[in-house]
């Protein structure tokens, strides 16, 4: 086939209105949030003392970090769906939530005596956190990866990883309203581990299915 012949075939292929990766990713995020939110509400539900929890800085910070991480991962996800964007172009956004968390950890280490550090870090419901966040992430991650198949990521594994980060942060934001462990030390260990697991899963899946 000559190149000019191929061009003729491409030109004849109708310009149907296509949804952009941004629209698809938005749709997948909303769908994922709806399903994960329903699952969360029916199985876990928010903690009984939620209104008083909002008056403590630790709880508000925990929730805010998850939401910030979610917003940044969403942006990174949109960007990495394009072929000309590299991971380093969005790295600042991805690093924002971890950097804020690091500051919060330092503050917590100063605020409480060393004798209580390990108790705060281990918390009461570490296993639930490690289980609930990845399980809530399944549907959002699947929806996001499906949406990203319309994209053209430079490195498929990176795009898959930020999709995992987004799905994980979304689930973490939901789970944060259930979990009574509010210390930044707990968040830094267990939430990071749980979201990291989802991110890794996204990277592995992305590497396989986001090639184009």
């Amino acid at each position, binding site marked *: 086939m*000559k190149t000019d012949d191929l061009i003729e075939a*491409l030109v004849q292929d109708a310009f149907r209105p296509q949804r*952009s*990766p941004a629209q698809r990713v938005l749709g997948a995020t909303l769908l994922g949030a709806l399903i994960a939110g329903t699952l969360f509400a029916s199985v876990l539900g928010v903690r009984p003392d939620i209104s008083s929890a909002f008056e403590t800085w630790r709880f508000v910070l925990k929730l805010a970090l998850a939401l910030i991480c979610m917003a940044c991962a969403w942006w990174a996800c949109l960007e990495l769906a394009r072929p000309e964007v590299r991971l380093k172009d969005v790295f600042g956004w991805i690093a924002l939530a971890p950097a804020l968390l690091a500051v919060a950890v330092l503050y917590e280490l100063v605020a409480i005596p060393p004798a209580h550090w390990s108790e705060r870090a281990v918390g009461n419901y570490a296993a639930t956190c490690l289980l609930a966040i990845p399980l809530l992430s399944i549907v959002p991650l699947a929806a996001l990866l499906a949406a990203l198949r319309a994209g*053209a990521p*430079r490195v498929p594994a990176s795009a898959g990883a930020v999709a995992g980060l987004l799905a994980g942060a979304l689930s973490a934001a939901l789970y944060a309203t259930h979990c009574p462990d509010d210390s930044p030390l707990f968040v830094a260990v267990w939430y990071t581990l749980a979201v990291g697991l989802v991110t890794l899963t996204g990277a592995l899946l992305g590497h396989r299915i986001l090639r184009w």
Partner: protein
Amino acid sequence: MTLREVDLAELMRAANRGDTQAYRKLLREVSPVLRGFARHAFLRYGLSNEDVEDIVQETLLAMHLKRHTWVESRPLLPWVRAIAHNKLVDHLRRSGRRRQHVPIDEFSDLLVADPTASLSSGLDAEAAMGKLKGRQRDVVVAISVNGKSARQVAEDLRMTEGAVRVVLHRALRSLSKALRNDQL
């Protein structure tokens, strides 16, 4: 380069609004640029020039199928280059050179394209065409090789024009997939 960038981006914007003449012009203008890029890269890796046209065709096909990943407010050529780079890396991987670093920035001085454009047939694409089945193959051959319009093909094959376009779109996707998976 700046002028070229502006012109090409303008053509692509017009194409996005359904201007097929602009789209044809864009793909024709971009082809020699891609050819220069592929030649340069093949020279660098000591590969023969035989497969240059494959890279050109695979890149055009990917540009077409992924055209909605270009944002109109951003420059077009970096996007084109990134797609060509992806296809080149795929090609090098298939020919047994795994994960070589391919510097695409050098490509920017090659934007003044070689006017002696080669129109040799892309062998891989030819083989991939063989993978297309029945109706998909009929439609692609009629439109590309025989130069018919979708409407003419619809009449010849007793299909609706819409159905021809659906078959064509699916055929292009299969073609791209066959090339990517090296099912040749």
